[in-house]
């Protein structure tokens, strides 16, 4: 356990800790470009040079390990001068085109320039010009002039994805990031290099020129692309989600997320149901609750509770599912539960999971073992046999493909009643007698439990735009009230507390490793 002194403060650190990490622990931010905690350390940007007493030259803090009795200065005159000099070098051929740069506002070069350099260029020669928009692959565009050659992107492709697409070509002021001719930066995580890039050299084709970053508001959220539930910054402007960025979470996704996940924000605004409908006619929520209650009562009397099926969506939050189960069992009185959601897709051995639903484990945890929802294929079978006459669906996703999917859609047509409570319409909207629009995860608070049993809370980012969409649990509470079997929830926090209690009770009975572990309440 070496002890060192940084800017006059003593700290004990583990052997192998770098000066940069030790300084960070004491709250001193050592500026750096090329260093990234998840990548190897080339110490090539020289921005993190600090003074170590008894060392003749300044040393890179990112690479220098703390030794016993080391005395470090990270903010004295000599160090600040060195930073200024490094920045002047980096800016020799930099175009300073911040006004048209997507990175402006979240650019480390811009920030450090204002912190340490803040002088006009002393250069009297013409800057080296390079290609401004070089497509490295389907998702990423490269600007050679802005690049500071920190090689974070190169190391990401070498060390994290192992795909080795990128490299530095040429040398000196002709250096640039390139792929091998004829090959693209085309892997499932390629857009991570855009986040890694400390300057505006790598930009996302999707986000380029879409929104200035200082207009964005950010909410801590969870990616719904698959069962991994990567933690994300959900960034929005004008009630529209503009992009998703990975949020550091050592238990789930570390610093990364996949390209497919980043595009999930698009469906938050696509094909949305905006108004409660009965037989195609639009109503207010009080009206629709009353009419729906009547229709449901009629159906129960007509076909009996056992002919009513309820589909739980693994796209919904735990809180919504908790109330949904109460609604199905205590209000509708049906025990025919099925698991909805999206069909399985491709997975890999890094982050992407084959299950394309964020909360399958959440659905399971809402039920005691042995009474969990039956698979969707069972529903198809039951529809074929005619034992189901009415269907209450949470979510419009159908976890079937090909002929089975077509068969399901045509069977739904013959039902006495289809209630569709979902944020999006999909192919079932045309067949639903009652449509109850709900909010997406971006528009509400909630909890998802991922494939490894990690529960994560997500916050509300935006309000539904020009839409009457409601939280699922509020819809259930409203309907229950009209059906005369009130559910006792008015506040989200009470509901959440009850949900976690139920979740814990349900997971306690587990004795095999196959069941997800009891998740800790999301902070």
């Amino acid at each position, binding site marked *: 356990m070496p002890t060192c002194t940084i800017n006059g403060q003593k700290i004990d650190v583990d052997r192998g800790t770098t000066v940069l990490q030790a300084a960070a622990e004491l709250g001193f931010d050592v500026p750096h470009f090329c260093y990234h905690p998840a990548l190897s350390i080339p110490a090539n940007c020289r921005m993190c040079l600090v003074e170590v007493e008894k060392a003749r030259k300044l040393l890179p803090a990112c690479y220098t390990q703390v030794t016993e009795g080391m005395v470090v200065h990270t903010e004295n005159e000599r160090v600040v001068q060195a930073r200024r000099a490094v920045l002047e070098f980096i800016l020799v051929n930099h175009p300073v085109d911040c006004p048209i740069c997507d990175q402006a506002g979240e650019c480390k070069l811009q920030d450090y320039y204002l912190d340490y350099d803040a002088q006009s260029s002393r250069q009297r020669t013409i800057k080296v010009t390079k290609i401004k928009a070089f497509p490295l692959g389907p998702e990423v565009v490269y600007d050679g002039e802005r690049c500071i050659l920190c090689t974070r992107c190169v190391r990401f492709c070498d060390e994290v994805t192992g795909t*080795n*697409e*990128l*490299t*530095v*070509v*040429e*040398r000196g002021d002709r250096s640039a990031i*390139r*792929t*091998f*001719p*004829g*090959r693209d930066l085309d892997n499932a995580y390629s857009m991570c290099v855009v986040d890694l890039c400390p300057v505006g050299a790598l930009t996302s084709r999707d986000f380029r020129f879409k929104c200035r970053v200082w207009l964005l508001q950010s909410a801590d959220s969870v990616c719904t692309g698959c069962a991994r539930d990567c933690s994300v910054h959900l960034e929005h402007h004008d009630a529209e989600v503009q992009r998703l960025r990975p949020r550091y979470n050592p238990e789930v996704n570390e610093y990364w997320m996949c390209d497919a996940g980043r595009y999930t924000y698009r469906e938050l605004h696509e094909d949305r149901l905006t108004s409660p409908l009965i037989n195609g006619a639009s109503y207010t929520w009080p009206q629709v609750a009353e009419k729906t209650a009547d229709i449901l009562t009629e159906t129960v009397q007509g076909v009996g509770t056992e002919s009513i099926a309820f589909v739980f969506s693994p796209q919904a939050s735990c809180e919504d599912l908790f109330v949904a189960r109460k609604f199905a069992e205590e209000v509708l009185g049906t025990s025919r539960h099925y698991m909805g959601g999206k069909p399985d897709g491709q997975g890999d051995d890094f982050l992407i999971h084959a299950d394309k639903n964020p909360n399958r484990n959440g659905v399971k945890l809402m039920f005691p073992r042995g009474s969990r929802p039956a698979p969707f294929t069972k529903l198809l079978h039951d529809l074929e046999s005619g034992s189901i006459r009415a269907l209450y669906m949470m979510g419009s996703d159908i976890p079937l493909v090909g002929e089975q999917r077509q068969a399901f859609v045509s069977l739904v047509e013959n039902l006495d009643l289809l209630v569709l409570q979902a944020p999006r319409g999909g192919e079932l909207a045309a067949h639903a007698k009652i449509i109850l629009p709900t909010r997406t995860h971006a528009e509400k608070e909630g909890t998802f439990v991922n494939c490894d049993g990690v529960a994560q809370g997500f916050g509300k980012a935006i309000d539904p735009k020009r839409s009457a969409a409601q939280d699922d649990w509020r819809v259930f509470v409203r309907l229950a009230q009209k059906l005369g079997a009130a559910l006792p929830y008015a506040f989200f926090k009470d509901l959440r507390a009850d949900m976690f209690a139920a979740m814990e009770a349900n997971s306690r009975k587990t004795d095999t490793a196959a069941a997800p572990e009891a998740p800790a309440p999301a902070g």
Partner: protein
Amino acid sequence: MPALEFSESAEKQFLNILSRYPEGHRRAALLPTLHLAQKEFGYMSVDAMEYVATRLELPPSKVLHVATFYTMYNKSRVGQRHVQVCKSISCAVMKAYSLVEYLEDKLGVVAGETTADGKFTLSEVECLAVCGYAPALQCNDDYHIHLGQPAEDGSWPKVDALLQEWGWEA
């Protein structure tokens, strides 16, 4: 599979290069293998780099990285004789720039170009590390030093002799 392949003798040399480095460190053989490939295939074409990558079991991007870093790997096809005139300081003082101009006139190309018959490529290069013997030029693997100074009429007798030796015809 890349379209190129080492000839039998080049293959022998390649195996010899590999044998100089410990097992599992094929990357170490990259520089000599690139030189061999340049000799064999003429220049660092995309196919040549890809072939080297395959043979050394390296990602092609790493071969591109090294091949583009060093200027002595030619990125385009060169003539039978690659005349590289040093233009660093000692040679420049000894009128290397006039020498380049003279050769440009003689060969009818601009530095960096190849003659139409494909016999000569003229390049300007950085220091050839024979500053004591300026002006100097390198033709393929051979050094030609102490090239003297231009005569009154602007001609370079020693260079003319070299050109004649190389079979250059006006």
